[in-house]
């Protein structure tokens, strides 16, 4: 819902913008818009370089009247036209009414509904203002009527010449110089953008977070794990900038940093351990998950990361690692249902890949063009299928006949690889020296066989001759009347260029059959060749690509502030939300590309900013003035992600197994949860030993029945790309924290530790527990409540020692010494309470 402008506020109290509800963005953006000479090619927005270019104007004077203010097409007009008009008068030629197209200036002018400079002669104005139901636009039932303020805006825009601008995210980002701020000099480049906005909004930013909050925030944000209490205490003792930066580096260098970023990436690419349709059978792809973790851990440049996932198999110097990365192309849902029509499902898989790749890298809703031209963004249905054609070379079946795929790629560990080589050598030697069935040879062969069976495999991509790809009219897979297409990228984005590489055999074979323009000259002179996934990946990582770096930077920002600079992290298109700080987003995108797609560089910039270090508690005035925190004058706050809720409890219990990578694991799960699965029927056996205590990211991801403790905390099933998780607050979450054996076991082991090592007195032990879980001291009021809980618990267990024994043997961890059982049971009540606190599962 885009609001009108709070002009009254501007007029009555120009020095201080009252920010209320939905008007907030408009409110604090507007005063700048009053002043700024906006670049005519690219609207950099108020916190962009244009702001810096007009420092002499006193932003508080309110000199410019609202009437003379330049209306911003991108921020004010496009959203209106897009939301109310484009569905019938936009990019989709299939549903365009009256031949009128309003998303392009030349066409709008050509059709005569716009008279630049003369709103009274513009039919657009008379139609949106009409009272007659037969004339008014949008027609009743086709969208909301424009409000009087919106009508005024349209009038003023036409008065000022009805200029159009390219959509903000469809033009290459510009390295914007940060604006000058009047108040302070500290902070980094990010702060100069953020502080300028804060100044303009006239709000008081939240103070710096206290050191305990800050270190816990940083630990969860960078590693997904709570900080060790010693680290917290050290930082509390010395919270200097130098110490903070050391802390940042420490967490960035942590192996768990890779896991934390991977959690999010796996949501985007919809990584899961099962097929997702019907029988939802298991497939092995965990090496891909480990590749992602390693890539982030080693700070692999994002362009390489992109290329390896989309085309790791096509690289001239493809390695096992890049082939593993190419599993990305196979992560789509797939079906093994008996009555599946293979042609239908191949079409589904193709569409899924366009939808997902469009969402992951382009940050837009390309998937909407599957059945028709996109209603709001200039993606055509033909371009949808041209994009799908990039993936037409993937060797796959429409119906997955059994859970064991063809051509799984073995991914041995280093040890397995060397042992395999040894065995092969030994077998070769033995075969030459001995007769075929000597017992030793037999043993060697047996060992090799069992070794090879134990090697984890992944569903890597194998290229084959590309399937024919047609435009499917209305997305109908049965309709063969659409034209045949070859790989190409949407026309409104930069063109694809042939990459300088030698051809793979398969794409060379496929070349020459092309009848359509989308082919390039083979550098080897063998004629035109079809674009392939490698070309696509290189196109995505062009330095001037408008969407890829912006989208990733925006999402990264969300991971550290809770909201993107553009709130719609899954849609940077016409219907998405323009960024609150366009200049900053552009700057971050350029920092990203210019640094060689260095993810860690961006993260460092973000977490070292003052903005990141602010308290999330802005006080009632700030919250009232900017409820949605569009100024980022305070930090975000949110409930921990599902995996972190688990990891946090296990870490507190001292149970967490911190090893990286490996096959997916099965934590405790309620009986019967899989009873709806079939083909085959399955029973769930949880892991025993260390595998039981692995981080949530390693949990077996059963798409149709995701582990219920993860599901309860909003982990996505990963059937589709999820660019952001919802964060709900439900009774089921309470039940998980209260009763899930994983949680109870963590609590009782933490109680064991408190009893064994936390000291002798109640206060000492409580201090230990609260420090382990919350990285702070217990408050007196907490001690009172928990002491009473412990006392009541003691009465109960003295009356029923057997109950104490049952409680303290929850889970597989060794139970306490017999002499400690009663005490541990008593303390388990306390630790359960602490692990159930709101604060425990929050990141403030």
């Amino acid at each position: 819902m885009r609001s009108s402008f709070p002009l009254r506020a501007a007029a009555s109290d120009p020095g201080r913008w009252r920010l209320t509800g939905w008007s907030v963005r408009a409110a604090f953006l507007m005063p700048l818009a009053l002043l700024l000479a906006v670049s005519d090619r690219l609207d950099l927005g108020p916190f962009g370089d244009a702001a810096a270019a007009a420092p002499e104007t006193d932003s508080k004077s309110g000199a410019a009247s609202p009437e003379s203010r330049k209306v911003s097409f991108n921020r004010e007009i496009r959203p209106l036209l897009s939301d109310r008009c484009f569905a019938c008068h936009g990019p989709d030629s299939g549903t365009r009414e009256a031949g009128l197209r309003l998303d392009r200036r030349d066409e709008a002018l050509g059709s005569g509904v716009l008279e630049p400079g003369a709103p009274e002669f513009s039919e657009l104005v008379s139609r949106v203002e009409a009272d007659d139901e037969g004339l008014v636009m949008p027609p009743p039932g086709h969208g909301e009527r424009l409000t009087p303020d919106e009508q005024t805006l349209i009038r003023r825009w036409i008065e000022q010449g009805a200029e159009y601008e390219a959509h903000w995210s469809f033009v290459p980002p510009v390295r914007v110089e940060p604006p000058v701020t009047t108040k302070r000099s500290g902070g980094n480049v990010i702060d100069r953008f953020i502080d300028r906005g804060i100044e303009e909004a006239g709000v008081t930013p939240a103070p710096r977070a206290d050191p305990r909050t800050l270190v816990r925030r940083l630990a969860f944000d960078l590693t997904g794990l709570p900080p060790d209490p010693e680290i917290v205490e050290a930082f509390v003792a010395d919270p200097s900038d130098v110490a903070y930066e050391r802390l940042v580096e420490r967490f960035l260098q942590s192996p768990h940093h890779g896991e934390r970023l991977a959690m999010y990436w796996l949501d985007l690419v919809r990584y899961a351990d099962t097929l997702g349709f019907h029988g939802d059978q298991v497939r092995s792809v965990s090496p891909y998950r480990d590749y992602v973790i390693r890539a982030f851990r080693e700070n692999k440049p994002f362009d390489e990361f992109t290329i390896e996932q989309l085309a790791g198999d096509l690289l001239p110097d493809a390695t096992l690692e890049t082939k593993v990365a190419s599993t990305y192309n196979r992560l789509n849902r797939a079906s093994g249902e008996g009555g599946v029509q293979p042609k239908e499902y191949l079409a589904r898989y193709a569409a899924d890949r366009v939808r997902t790749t469009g969402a992951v890298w382009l940050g837009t809703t390309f998937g909407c063009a599957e059945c028709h031209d996109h209603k709001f963004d200039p993606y055509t249905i033909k371009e949808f299928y041209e994009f799908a054609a990039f993936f037409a070379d993937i060797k796959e079946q429409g119906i997955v006949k059994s859970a064991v795929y063809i051509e799984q790629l073995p991914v041995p560990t280093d040890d397995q690889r060397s042992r395999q080589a040894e065995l092969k050598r030994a077998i070769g030697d033995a075969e030459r020296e001995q007769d075929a069935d000597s017992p030793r040879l037999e043993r060697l062969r047996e060992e090799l066989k069992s070794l090879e069976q134990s090697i984890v495999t992944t569903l890597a991509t194998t290229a084959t001759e590309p399937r024919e790809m047609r435009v499917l009219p209305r997305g109908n897979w049965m309709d063969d009347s659409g034209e045949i297409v070859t790989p190409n990228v949407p026309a409104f984005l930069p063109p694809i260029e042939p990459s300088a590489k030698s051809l793979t055999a398969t794409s060379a074979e496929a070349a020459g059959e092309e009848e359509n323009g989308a082919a390039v000259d083979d550098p080897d002179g063998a004629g035109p060749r079809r674009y392939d996934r490698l070309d696509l990946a290189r196109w995505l990582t062009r330095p001037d690509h408008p969407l890829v770096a912006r989208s990733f930077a925006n999402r990264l920002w969300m991971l550290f502030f809770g909201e993107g600079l553009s709130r719609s992290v899954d849609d940077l298109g016409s219907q998405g939300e323009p960024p609150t700080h366009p200049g900053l987003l552009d700057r971050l995108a350029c920092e990203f590309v210019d640094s060689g797609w260095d993810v860690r560089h961006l993260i460092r910039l973000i977490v070292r900013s003052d903005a990141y270090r602010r308290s999330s508690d802005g006080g009632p005035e700030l919250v009232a003035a900017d409820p949605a925190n569009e100024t980022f004058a305070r930090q975000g706050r949110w409930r921990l992600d599902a995996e972190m809720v688990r990891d946090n409890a296990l870490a507190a219990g001292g149970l967490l197994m911190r090893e990286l990578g490996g096959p997916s694991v099965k934590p405790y799960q309620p009986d019967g949860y899989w009873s709806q699965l079939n083909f085959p029927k399955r029973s769930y056996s949880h892991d025993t030993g260390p595998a039981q205590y692995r981080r949530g990211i390693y949990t077996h991801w059963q798409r149709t029945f995701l582990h219920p403790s993860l599901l309860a905390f909003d982990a996505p099933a990963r059937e589709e790309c999820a660019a952001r998780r919802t964060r709900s607050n439900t009774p089921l979450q309470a039940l998980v924290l209260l009763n899930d054996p994983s949680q109870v076991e963590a609590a009782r082991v933490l109680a064991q530790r408190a009893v064994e090592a936390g000291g002798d007195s109640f206060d000492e032990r409580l201090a230990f527990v609260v420090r382990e879980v919350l990285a702070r001291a217990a408050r007196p009021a907490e001690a009172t409540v928990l002491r009473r809980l412990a006392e009541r618990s003691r009465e109960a267990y003295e009356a029923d020692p057997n109950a104490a024994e049952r409680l303290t043997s929850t889970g597989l961890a060794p139970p306490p010494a017999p002499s400690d059982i009663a005490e541990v049971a008593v303390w388990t009540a306390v630790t359960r309470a602490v692990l159930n606190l709101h604060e425990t599962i929050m990141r403030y």
Partner: protein
Amino acid sequence: MTQDTAMTRELPMTHERPMTRHATATEEATDGERMRRRCFLSSAGLGVGSTALLAMLARATSGSETSGSGLLGGAIARPHHPPRVRRVIHLCMAGGPSHLETFDDKPELRRMHDRPMPESFTAGQQIAQLQGKKLTCFAPQFDFRRYGESGQSICTLFPNLGRVADDLCVIRSMHTDQINHDPAHTLFNTGSSQAGRPSMGSWLLYGLGQECDDLPGYVVLTSVGKGGQAQPIAARQWHSGFLPSRFQGVQFHATGAPVLYLNRPDGVTADQQRELVESVNTLNRDFAETIDDPEIATRIRQYEMAFRMQSSVPELTDLSGESEKTFAAYGTRGGDGTYASNCLLARRLLERGVRFVQLYHRAWDHHGRIKPSMETTAAEVDRATAALIEDLKARGLFDDTLIVWGGEFGRTPMAQGSGRDHHIKGFSMVFSGGAVRGGMSYGGTDELGYNAVENPVHVRDFHATLLHLFGIDHRRFSYRHQGLRFRLTGVEEAHVVRDVLA
């Protein structure tokens, strides 16, 4: 960043209640005013949170009975038109029951038995397991007769449904787009075969809120039949998609804890658990004094609800108060995870104010041996379904409950050996309840039972009708996601089937 921001970012329609970013906290203040009907509370649930609850009730009784939204707040402040139903039970016959052995007799198909299926019907049509096979007509395997004063034509396998024939509204002209189980269920539940959209139960909870505060507003029960292969059902079917996940369905299990994680840890008594929850809530309340975080209030409320569920759910599943007559009528003593047992449980859920109960009977995928399979499966559902209808009537719940019986698709008029394949072009579905016209049949398939030719009803028409009965205009009920206003009925035209409404 607060919870459910996706939801609070949008205000799709003027008819929806404005929400701040602290949506959940706002509900806290206004819930009571919105309550318009008595909430059934288990006495056992009073304990933790009882003070808050009583306060809520006090507010409720003094509040005005104005709007159609429930106790726990819905996005639609005022219904678009007067609602006719308050709750729905969807008896989902999973696997796809044959319309030709239930509600759609085809004498011409009997006559054509064993003869080739005319190509005029099948050319260019989607086909599932019969791909590339010879297509032969396959007669209805059982007799039909006319039941009730209305003379409703029903297969003789369903004598009990015959008994309530005058309360059944049979739609014989359903059609769908999806020919495989998983996507067909997904379409039926969410209006799209693509994953990630909210199910209809979630839409209803989002729009109308829920009317009880010790049970979830959307409950799913499942049973497995003995007469056919049990097709898997994904949790996606009751997921809230892009709606906040508090609107998703909660599955009740026949074995183990009825609700996942409901049972307290071994070695902890109910009293201890209560004290624990009270302590947690006290500490959270203290914490709320030190920090401005409205989510804490919501968290406290959810712990109260979770604790109440630990009593209300066992009370719900404890059938000791049910009469012998009831057991006899349903043909079960309950607790055995059968369809009949679930029907009885469903009635108890509806009584307690649960808005949407969905009951899957996984039994109807009769690719082969349809004759014995139908006999078995019909016997599993016939008596209990009729008993449920009569029970709801006896308890005064029939008038404002919508009962829906049907599968994700039908089955081919063509033989697949001794059975039938999946069929999407025509199948039957049954409505019952005070809001629909009992004793009527609506629409029809052609003479061979292949295509819905008379008054075809698409799945999205069913959705439009469902929402209509709840007082919601499907065109005006949307949720903004990825820049689009998504509706349960999607972008294609959908029609309320007005002719079947009472």
